[in-house]
């Protein structure tokens, strides 16, 4: 079944369509939630959050644009996992998380779609393991020490590669890539 058809069915209250999305995206959502929560929180906590994400999909189906389910689920999974970490007083600082993008005037805003595409291009163009390090840190919010341990690197190497990733993203967003 086509995803947009399934989304329309979901928006009309079809629980079968919800099952279809769960079958398709459980791996994706679990990847995000597990990588953010484990081992700081339990597997049971992670499973609970995965269920919360699909319930949010059910409630928000009518407001998701066609083709936007993956981005929606990713955003919700991450927000809910982050909230769970906060609730357990787990604080994971991120390296230089804020980027400045020049825009033409105070009234101008960069379009959401444009930002999405530039971000995706930048991440896809990163060589491995820079891409993995970048996503582990800024997507899963894993701290530098944890990433270094997982990938058998020293923390300075991880920081250097994060800086390289930030620079690539900044150039893509500025249109300098």
């Amino acid at each position: 079944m086509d995803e947009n058809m399934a989304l329309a069915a979901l928006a009309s209250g079809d629980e079968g369509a919800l099952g279809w999305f769960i079958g398709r995206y459980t791996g994706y959502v679990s990847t995000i939630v597990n990588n953010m929560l484990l081992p700081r929180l339990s597997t049971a906590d992670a499973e609970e959050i995965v269920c919360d994400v699909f319930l949010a999909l059910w409630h928000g189906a009518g407001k998701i644009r066609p083709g936007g389910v993956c981005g929606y689920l990713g955003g919700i999974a991450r927000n809910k996992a982050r909230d769970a970490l906060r609730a357990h007083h787990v604080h994971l600082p991120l390296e230089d998380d804020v980027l400045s993008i020049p825009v033409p005037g105070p009234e101008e805003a960069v379009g959401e779609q444009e930002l999405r595409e530039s971000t995706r291009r930048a991440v896809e163009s990163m060589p491995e393991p820079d891409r993995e390090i970048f996503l582990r840190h800024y997507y899963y919010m894993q701290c530098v020490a944890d990433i270094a341990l997982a990938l058998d690197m020293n923390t300075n190497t991880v920081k250097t590669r994060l800086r390289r990733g930030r620079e690539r993203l900044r150039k893509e967003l500025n249109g300098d890539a």
Partner: protein
Amino acid sequence: MHDMQVKISDLLPSAGIEALPGSVEGDSERVREAVLARLKEEKMNTRKRFRTGRTLLIAAAVTVLLSAAAFAAAQGFSELSHRREAESRYRSEPRDIVEVAPEDSPLYMAFEELREFREEVQSKQPTGSLTQEEFDKVMEDNKRISEKYFELAEKYGLRPVKSLGSFSSLEELVKALNEFAGIHDHSFLPAEDPRATVISASYTDCGSFSYAGGFTLPGGGAADYGIRSAAKGAMENLTEAIYLDEMEDWKYTAADGTEVLLGLGERKALLYVELEHCYVMATIRAGSAGADEESVISEFAWNKGTHTAISREDLEYFADSIGFGTIDALAASAQT
């Protein structure tokens, strides 16, 4: 030039990157069972908690509108309610349903029959974990409901509506509608605000359309909204679930001279007007207390702070930004 600050950690999830590191399988069957069980639990907890006071109030309002003429000059949204209420997934009180089809009109009866048929079909559907066979049955049921729609359109002498296209921007919709009706008006809806949480649009062979997007408030904030038209004589209805007792409504003459009905609630605002060839209803996902918490916007840090409460003046400004004459001309063009 000035600088806009963005958080990398907010950009990444919005970009919808699918190939993530550290991939895990996930037991979808187990998740499916758990989610459907929780859904069932939610439904049981919210059902049948009707506010008796509200029911009486709506019943009183309905006695006023026994003729279709009462609708043409609707003085308030309570007059557009037919004693029907809908469960709310978010609050214990049911919401009131307002709709443009006058009670006992062929359109109303056709949709009542369709609703009853749908409910009967869906009541026999399996719940919980679905086998492939059960899932196929659900899809087959959807097809039967779709066929019923055409059967009822014929029975009640209504024109069935066929979608001619769907789009992901206002610009594409407006271009298609201009070509469809042979008109040249590219600004009959407010300019699309890039901070809109959802953008979707479609139009039909009856000259009706729907658009969900965002518009810029005079103060610089953004509000998500949806606007739909329904051509008269066509098998299409416009409904909206709201909390009527939280809504203040008033008549307003928009910039193009059209008198519209506006309603401002705590988290939702409405616009309704009956034109010569169609009905128009718009829902703004914000009210006097703030943006709609049921909306996806609350889930994304992206839009935090940009989607704000709206005032009476903001709602009137929204009405002023709409070209009702063009919307009516779109429906008229399909009838000739």
